């Protein structure tokens, strides 16, 4: 067995252990707070798989967050944290709705224009904090975090002044024509062709990250940016391109969601897909090939919690606690692996000095 194999197994086992610990703690909490713990547990664990409708509910949640998590896989591989995904998913949803309402026609071309158009605009927006970072050494995290709120309030302004239906009871856009929304593929659920889009995106991003020089250069910058520069990689170009791709994917997550469920755009706050994307990508170790499992797992416990909330006396917030625990443990895993790395380097140096002494 090679060193690499050992490392891979090591990190898989660690992720599994943190998931198991978090789940066990969730069960303990259920046992403690519930009067009917078996019922609650049952709803939590088997709920999402108990009917096609519930399974569909799981997929509905999985589609937008999968796209947002993909965006995070790309941008976080640079080892620079941009959290613009949240704002982009919101703005992408809004812009896609706006495109549909503004275009004089319906159908496949309208949907394509809406999703791609929104994606391109959000890609440019997502590149702004990266540009500020690379050109003016602005703090990427703060710049992107703040830009999320700019996008939220700009979006709400656009909604209120241009697309709001005054006859509707709450803040919402005009109704989109059915033919311009994504086609339903599982009856009795809101699972649409968005699922196919998400799967295609996962395959494409997997290939880009693992099989092209663009993905290789992104990872090289993330691994050691000085080495990347020394090797002749243009940090500016690659980082900007990665942000563009990230913005596009996040926006697509929001757009797919908005063109799938409700005929009206109703978000008045940030939807949280960007944050969930970071969470899921972290669990997947920022590797697109691990993403499907991570997405389904989070979607599964989210849906399970939701069902438990409805059919027992345990609140759905429990799952937030579980997620937080998992991230804590996985982040701790990151900390441990750093120590492991240091040990390895030290060991290597020791070996070298032994060889030198010979």
């Amino acid at each position, binding site marked *: 067995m*090679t*060193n*690499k194999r050992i*490392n891979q197994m090591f990190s898989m086992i660690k992720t599994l252990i943190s998931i198991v610990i978090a789940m066990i703690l969730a069960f303990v909490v259920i046992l403690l707070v519930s009067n009917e713990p078996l019922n609650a547990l049952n709803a939590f664990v088997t709920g999402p798989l108990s009917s096609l409708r519930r399974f569909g509910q799981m997929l509905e949640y999985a589609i937008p967050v999968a796209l947002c998590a993909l965006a995070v896989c790309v941008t976080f591989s640079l080892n620079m944290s941009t959290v613009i995904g949240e704002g982009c998913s919101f703005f992408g949803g809004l812009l896609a709705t706006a495109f549909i309402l503004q275009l004089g026609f319906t159908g496949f071309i309208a949907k394509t224009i809406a999703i791609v158009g929104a994606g391109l605009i959000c890609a440019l927006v997502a590149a702004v904090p990266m540009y500020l970072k690379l050109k003016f050494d602005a703090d990427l995290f703060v710049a992107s975090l703040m830009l999320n709120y700019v996008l939220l309030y700009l979006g709400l302004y656009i909604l209120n002044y241009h697309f709001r239906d005054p006859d509707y009871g709450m803040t919402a856009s005009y109704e989109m024509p059915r033919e311009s929304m994504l086609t339903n593929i599982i009856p009795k659920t809101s699972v649409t062709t968005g699922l196919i889009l998400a799967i295609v995106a996962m395959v494409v991003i997997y*290939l880009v990250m*693992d*099989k*092209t*020089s663009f993905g*290789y*250069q992104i*990872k*090289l910058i993330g*691994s*050691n940016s*000085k*080495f*990347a*520069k*020394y*090797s*002749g*990689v*243009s940090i500016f170009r690659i980082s900007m391109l990665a942000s563009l791709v990230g913005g596009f994917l996040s926006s697509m997550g929001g757009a797919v969601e908005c063109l799938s469920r409700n005929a009206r755009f109703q978000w008045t706050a940030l939807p949280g897909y960007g944050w969930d994307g970071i969470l899921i990508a972290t669990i997947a170790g920022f590797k697109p090939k691990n993403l499907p499992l991570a997405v389904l797992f989070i979607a599964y416990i989210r849906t399970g919690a939701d069902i438990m909330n409805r059919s027992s006396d345990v609140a759905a917030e429990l799952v937030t606690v579980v997620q937080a625990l998992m991230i804590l443990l996985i982040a701790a895993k990151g900390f441990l692996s750093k120590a492991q*790395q240091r040990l*390895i*380097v*030290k060991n*290597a*140096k*020791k*070996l*070298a*000095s*032994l*060889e*030198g*002494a*010979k």
Partner: protein
Amino acid sequence: MEPILQVQGVSKIYGNGIVANKNVHFSINAGEIHALMGENGAGKSTLMKVLFGMEKPDEGKIIVEGTQVDIHSPIDALKLGIGMVHQHFMLVPSLTVAENMILCDEPCKGPFISMSEAVAITEQTALKYHLPIDPRARISDLSVGMKQRVEIIKALYRHAKILILDEPTAVITPQESEELFVQLKKLREMGHTVIFISHKIREVKELCDRITIMRHGETVGSYDVDDLSEEDISGLMVGRRIAKKVDKKKAEPGKAILKVKGLYYGLSENRLLLDNVCFCVHAGEILGVAGVEGNGQRELVEIIAGLREAEKGFIYIENREVTGRTVRQIRDAGVSHIPQDRLTYGAATGSTIAENLISDCSGNKQFHNGILYSKKKISEYANKLISRFQIKCDSEDTPVAMLSGGNMQKVVVARELRSNQKLIIADQPTRGIDVGTANLIHKQLIELRDQGAAILLISADLGEVMALSDAIIVMYDSKIVAYLKDVPSLTDKQLGRYMLGVEQQTEEQIREVFDDE
């Protein structure tokens, strides 16, 4: 007279097995300026860290004013009256001078720090030692020389009677150096003792009373500075070396590949790191750059490789100007670069060997099937290099971090030497690695030279420079001070004199290295 500080038989072995100090003896009298000299890696810094409590010695005694002491931390050292001014200042840049002065020992009024008192303390100390400073100035606004002064005042305020200055003149301008010397002499008059670490013999001759010379972790001896000539000092520092033998034919230099013309760097900081550097490297020739580190070599290499931008001057590769081009463009012009710091610039340790080997040509068609990478083609390519450079590893998928230092360096060298490069910049190519790997790298370099590559070899190891080079330039104080064409008849003593600035060739002699057709 009773020495104020004595070091007896101190040894220090680092965790990685490097013996930094071996049975060091050393004593300093009160009220003298004592120079500590030695080449890079001679163990000066380690010895000073031991004295300042930053490293614990494995053997030996330290005696301060007649009593044996254990120094566990810098705080202990300060209590004993030992203060240190580091080469890289230990100051908080965003705070003012006064705030830095009182750090850890804040004068308080109730729960609040009394700023007026801090300012008063700083002013008093500055006045007492004739070291004027503005207590309210922010550290980040000060010049390097003033920052150094703050460090000195800070040490004096903490009642340091013995001041250790670690290469203080390496970072400041010549004018500031002059001023520093005046101040240090004043401190000597006031009864303070100074340990002065330097590479520059002239400074030591000007300033110091006595000198201790170190070589390979041992003390060679202590002398009165007036008893030694500059030649004596450089001879004692360099010692006698066993010349390395490398088999090679006589070089047949072809046309000039690299031309460097009038290169300047550091003009804006008012401290020249490169001062009108001109030279040529020809096809089929190894030009060695000798010199004590920190005399401009690093800047020179980084500018040629495109990692840094020159402030003035021109660089040509095969008569095409490449000044200010990107690393990509320079690499495409046929330049490869073995960096001196392999962990920072030479490799991504978390990535695999294969990934490291293709880093500079990741977009190359030879690794692709259509637009996607071919795992097979990359593996084949990597394995070819692994066997050619005898890299010991499980497979090409092993992360570089798992390799020993020597094998890591082989990965770097394999990537840089693999194909028909026109110019190879080899910056300390064999530092810190085993003899076997070093020989392999030397052999590869000579082979490439014979195939017509131009090689610029920078090395702090005199033996390596003399064994490999067909001609040598010596850098001292940011300038080229000698161009030596007849390497076989050169002795290390001669080279040492140029390296330490004892001797310098005439302008005409130096100009010969730049043949502008």
